[in-house]
Each structure stands twice: as C-alpha cells, then as structure tokens.
C-alpha cells in the first residue's frame, strides 16, 4: 500500500512536469493564471521583447481591480482615475489581453471584481488545480483544495509563455483547529489569532493546511478568509481539503461542468484531501474555544490582541509600532477613537461578510466622527447585496456604498486614509502607510468594523449582536481623545 499523502503532496505530484533535483527546481504545471492590471504590464512587455505568444490563452483570465475608481462613472462614462498612469495601466491590460486572446472581465461585464473574489464565485477556481496570480493573496483559492500561490511579474511572464513555473518543493505545516468558534467570532478573528500565535514568519517556506472540526464547520466564504491571510503568516499557500461543503458551493457556478458532468467532476474532486495518517513537516494545534474577537494593534498582522484586552506594554519589540499607531502601551484597545471604517477586500468583501456587517449596522447609525466605506468584492457580490437591500441599509446608516474593487485595502485608486487617521479595516495588511501615507490601520472582522463605526471607536462586536442592546452598548464604550503622532518614524530613521 502507498504511504498516506498530504493534500499538498497529491497536488504537487499531479502537476510535476519534471521533478526537482539538487541542480534544478521542479517544473510545475499551472492550470489557471489570474491577471490584474498592476503586476502584468512588465510581463507582457517581456513576452513582446522576446517575440513570444501566450502558450494557452484559455488558461488565463484577467480582471480590473487594484487601481480602479470605486465611484460610478459619470454620464459621459468618465471615471475618477487617480492618475493618468492608473488609467493607462488598465488600457495596457485591455490591449495586452486583446492581442494575446485572454478573457478580460471589464467594466460592464457583470463579472468584474477583485481577482480572488471573482475566480471562486464564477467557478474558475476548482479543486485539484494549480492557480497563480501576481498577487500574494492568491492563497485564497486554496480553500477549494487547489494549490494557489502568489508570484512576481517575472513569473507571470513564465506562466504566460510556458504554462509552467520553476519551483522548489515547500514544506508542509498542519494547523488543526478543533472545537467551535464562540459567538461573535468569525473566520477573520480565527486567522488573526492564528497569525498572532505562529508569527508573521511562522509559515515561511511552508504550505499550510488548515484542518480540524472548527475548519470543517466553516462555510466556503469563511474558509477563503482563512486561506487568504496565509501569506500574512509568511506561507505562500493555504489549503483546505475538499468536502461536501466545497462541492455544494461549486454546484451550478458559471464555469464548472454542468449536469451529469458536474457529478463526474465532483467524484474526481473528492480525492483532493489529505489521507488519514499523512505526515506533515510541522503541526500546530489550536482550540477554537480560546478565541475572542481579535484585532491588530500594531504595524504587522502578527501584532494582535483580543478586543477586551489591553495593548502590550512598551518594550523593544513593541515601541516602534505603538508609537506609529499613537497608542499607549498597557491601555485598553476598546475605546480608541476611530476616523475611518473600511469593509471590503479579498479577505472580507464577499456577500457573507456584508451580511455580517449588516447584522450589526441594522437599525443603527454610523458615529458622526467616522467615515465608513463599504466596497463589495465583485459585481456579483454587489448585485446580490443590493437584492437583499444591504446597499440601502448602508446608506441609511450614513456609510458610503461603492463600486467593486480593492479600494482602501491598498489605497492606490484614490480611496485613502489621511495621515494620522485611525482606520478599522476588514482587509489584510496593517503595514505603515498601507492605506495611505501616515495612515494607521487596525485589522478586524466585518462585525468588529461595523461595531467601531457605530461606536466611533474600537468596540466589542458582541455588544451589538442583538439590536435590543443598542442603547446599552453605545453608552458602554468610552472614546478617549486621540494622542496619535502618526508621522513619527523614529525607529525607521535610527
């Protein structure tokens, strides 16, 4: 009998065109390549310079997301591009896709959106595939039992020209989460907690497989949220084995096989799980019951704290981040005044995330000091949310309802947090200046983000679970005045 294999082993071995040796990396075949405007132009230029064509154009799909404005086009169809270069970059992608025969989800296609939202929702992302994109959050697609990882622009060129990449085999790390997530805790709280536990370099050199009863109980959207942030733990890919939740989520999607062909495909897809007894290079166990709503307090995603806990004391490892964030060591996190709330991104911009936010927002108003921006992850998410009335709920609460895109997650389309402002964001990176120069970011779940928007400061989402608590919870949160000195970069200039 063959030795039990991990899901990663199976995916790797099925895609090896050539095994690795001491002298050369493996040649790995790539089933699906997703493109966006920012990391592809240099790769297309490289192909043109060498006179090469895209080898299998039908295995490449492009979308516009990173630098696209999120305000609607005016009556003449003009859009609020942040710069002529941003528009030129999109034009370049359009021309490149046209010339190379690559399908592009353009404005008006009804399929446009953040690359890691549209791939799964259209059923382009399928179990057993290798999927790459010039974007580190490609790990999202691993929720479907696909080996999915981010690549640089040179590699984008390699995949276009050869449908292959040169790769060294990574190690495997199993993160087993057992138990049930407590009320008020979502997949975002779980992944922030995990990164806090293993650290931002804890997964370096590894592919993470998330498993255990708590993971099995997650919906596909929640599984995507967890896999999405694998890169924030240093791992290039996150994986979850295929089960009936995966299969049922894919059934009927636009780009999966239909009818009897779907059942055939589903039977094949069920093999994409780790065998019982498969061995991983490293293992971590987490008890879901220890979880509380979790947010970041610092300037990398491993600096996390439970919403009802105090900030770490000033110490050599914390002082730089505390000073950038304008936080006092040892103070409570709850009650820190908030200027901006952003709900969206490939981490938490799907319909279930908007519902989670809406449950907190319903019947309440955004605090007058807060600007709240809600950006659906895709055209489809926007349509579905509007059909449920979430757009109205958002507007009536005093928040902005926008067109799909990456928006404030990367702040390169004009949606930015101003210097010194504190933002609570459902995105994935709280690096210095990620949401705009001098911006301070706290990462949180959609429920925690909505709670912060209502309270005007960081607040415990559990207090807002039931609308009957609204009055009590609003008075329970005391907002202290801001003491931020966001432009202090003492540590950096040392």
């Amino acid at each position, binding site marked *: 009998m063959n030795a039990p294999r991990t899901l990663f082993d199976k995916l790797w071995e*099925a895609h090896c*065109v*050539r095994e690795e040796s*001491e*002298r050369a990396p493996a040649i790995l*075949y790539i*089933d*699906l390549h997703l493109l966006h405007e*920012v990391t592809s*132009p240099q790769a297309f*230029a*490289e192909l043109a310079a060498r006179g090469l064509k895209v*080898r299998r154009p039908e295995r490449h*799909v492009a979308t516009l997301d*990173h*630098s696209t404005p999120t305000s609607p086009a005016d009556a003449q169809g003009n859009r609020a591009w*942040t710069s002529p270069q941003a528009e*030129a*970059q999109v034009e*370049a992608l359009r021309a490149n896709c046209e010339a190379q025969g690559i399908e592009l989800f353009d404005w008006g296609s009804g399929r446009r959106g953040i690359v890691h939202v549209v791939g799964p929702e259209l059923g382009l992302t399928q*179990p*057993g*595939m290798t999927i790459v994109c*010039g974007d*580190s959050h490609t790990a999202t697609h691993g929720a479907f039992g696909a080996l999915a990882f981010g*690549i640089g*622009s*040179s*590699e984008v*060129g*390699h995949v276009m*020209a*050869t*449908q292959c*990449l*040169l790769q060294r085999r990574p190690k495997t790390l199993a993160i087993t989460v057992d138990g049930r997530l407590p009320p008020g805790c979502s997949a975002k709280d779980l992944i922030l907690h995990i990164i806090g536990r293993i650290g*931002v*370099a804890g997964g*370096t*050199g590894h592919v993470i497989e998330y498993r255990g009863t708590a993971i099995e109980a997650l919906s596909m959207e929640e599984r995507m949220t967890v896999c999405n942030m694998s*890169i924030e733990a*240093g791992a*290039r890919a996150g994986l979850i084995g295929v089960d009936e939740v995966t299969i049922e989520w894919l059934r009927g999607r636009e*780009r*999966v096989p239909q009818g009897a062909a779907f059942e055939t*495909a589903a039977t*094949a897809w069920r093999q994409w799980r780790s065998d019982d007894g498969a061995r991983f290079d490293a293992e971590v166990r987490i008890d879901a019951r220890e979880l509380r709503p979790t947010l970041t307090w610092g300037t*990398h995603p491993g600096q996390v704290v439970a919403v009802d806990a105090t900030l770490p004391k000033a110490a050599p*490892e914390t002082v730089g981040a505390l000073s950038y964030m304008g936080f006092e060591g040892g103070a409570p996190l709850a009650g820190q005044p908030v200027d901006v709330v952003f709900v969206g991104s490939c981490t938490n911009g799907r319909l279930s995330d908007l519902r989670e936010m809406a449950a907190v927002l319903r019947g309440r108003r955004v605090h007058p000091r807060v600007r709240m921006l809600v950006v659906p992850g895709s055209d489809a998410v926007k349509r579905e949310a509007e059909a449920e009335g979430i757009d109205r709920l958002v507007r009536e609460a005093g928040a902005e309802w926008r067109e799909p895109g990456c928006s404030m997650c*990367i*702040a*390169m389309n004009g949606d930015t947090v101003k210097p010194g402002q504190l933002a609570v964001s459902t995105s994935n*990176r709280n690096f*210095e*200046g*990620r949401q705009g*120069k001098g911006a301070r970011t706290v990462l949180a779940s959609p429920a925690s983000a909505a709670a912060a928007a209502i309270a005007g400061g960081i607040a415990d989402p559990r207090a807002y679970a039931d609308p009957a608590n609204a009055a009590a919870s609003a008075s329970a949160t005391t907002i202290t005045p801001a003491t931020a000195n966001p432009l202090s*970069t003492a540590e*950096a*200039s040392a």
Partner: protein
Amino acid sequence: MKPFRTLESPIACLPRAHIDTDQIIPARFLTTTTREGLGQHAFHDWRFDEHGAPRADFVLNRPEHRAARILVAGRNFGCGSSREHAPWALLDAGFRAVISSGIADIFRNNALKNGLLPIVLPEAVVDTLLAQPGLRLQIDVAKRRVYWPDGGFIEFPLDAFAQACLLEGVDELGHLLAQSSAIDAYETRQAGSTAHGEPRHVA
C-alpha cells in the same frame, strides 16, 4: 541579466524587523508599466517627510551611504505583497545584495530573478553587521561566502540553480522555454483527465 560573480561594497543598515514590500515601494508608485525608475521611490515614506523633503537622518539619505550596494536589515525582510517592484526599486537604487536573518519567500524569488542576491545569515551575525554601517564586505557567489575586511568569512545558503543563473547571467525563462517538449508531453498526458480541471470558458 548580467553575470553576478563578486561584489565588494560598504553596507547600509536598516536595523528594523519585518520590513514589508509596502515600505520598500509604497503602492501608489505601482501604476507604472515599466520596471525602470523605481529607485527614486524606494523607502519613499521613510526617506521623505510630509512635505516631500528628504529626512537628513534617514540612513539611505546620508552621503556616506550613496556608494552602498549591500543592504543589511532586520529579520523577515520583504514580507507582504508579491510586487516585483520591490527588488526593481532596490536595484534601481543601486543595491545588488540584501543581508538579513530571514527573507520572505516571494521577495527572495523575485530578487533572484533580477540579479539581486538575497543572503540569509544567522541573527547574531546580522546584529553585529547592523552595528557597523559602512563596513566593507566582499561577496563571492561561486564560493557562497561573505568576507569581512580582515579576511574572515561566513558561508551563506544559495540554491544551486539560482547560483548557476547568477554566475552565468542566464534567466529562468530561457530554461523553461527549453523544456517545451516535456511540457507538451505533460499536456498530452493530462488531456481528458478530470482530476484537475480545465477552466471552462462559456463566455
């Protein structure tokens, strides 16, 4: 790519852990369609104040570091976004090697593809380097060694394939293109298999 065999240079030091690619090159400079000219934006938000004036105290603005081709930084360098603009910016700013006790996977891959040498050394060694800005080091790619001015040296890990590419100045795309018959054979083997899918286009 030009061959990369040896390098001798003073070091510039950034004594800070977890320097992410958003610091190396902020996202608002990514709306470019070329690789050139990104050096002026390297570490932009650390190098310039809110009025766009250079901060005199930032290490890379100090005149004595203009000649530095080797950047030494704290652990977990290059984490975060996969943007290849990060190594492009460092190369354009004059760097040819980065030394740290930990370098993030995607950054390391991207760096090697562009002839920027990522060198991982033990944390204690990196800490002593971080305390000696301006120290002249020599790097020998064939021997995988970093030499101190007194002739002492330390070996660093470097993948054999990456090393050959650096020494010969060849790039990976050439190597992959040469494998086209193996790729053809793989595609033929997979045709008709439903185990891992075809993205279906019914647009």
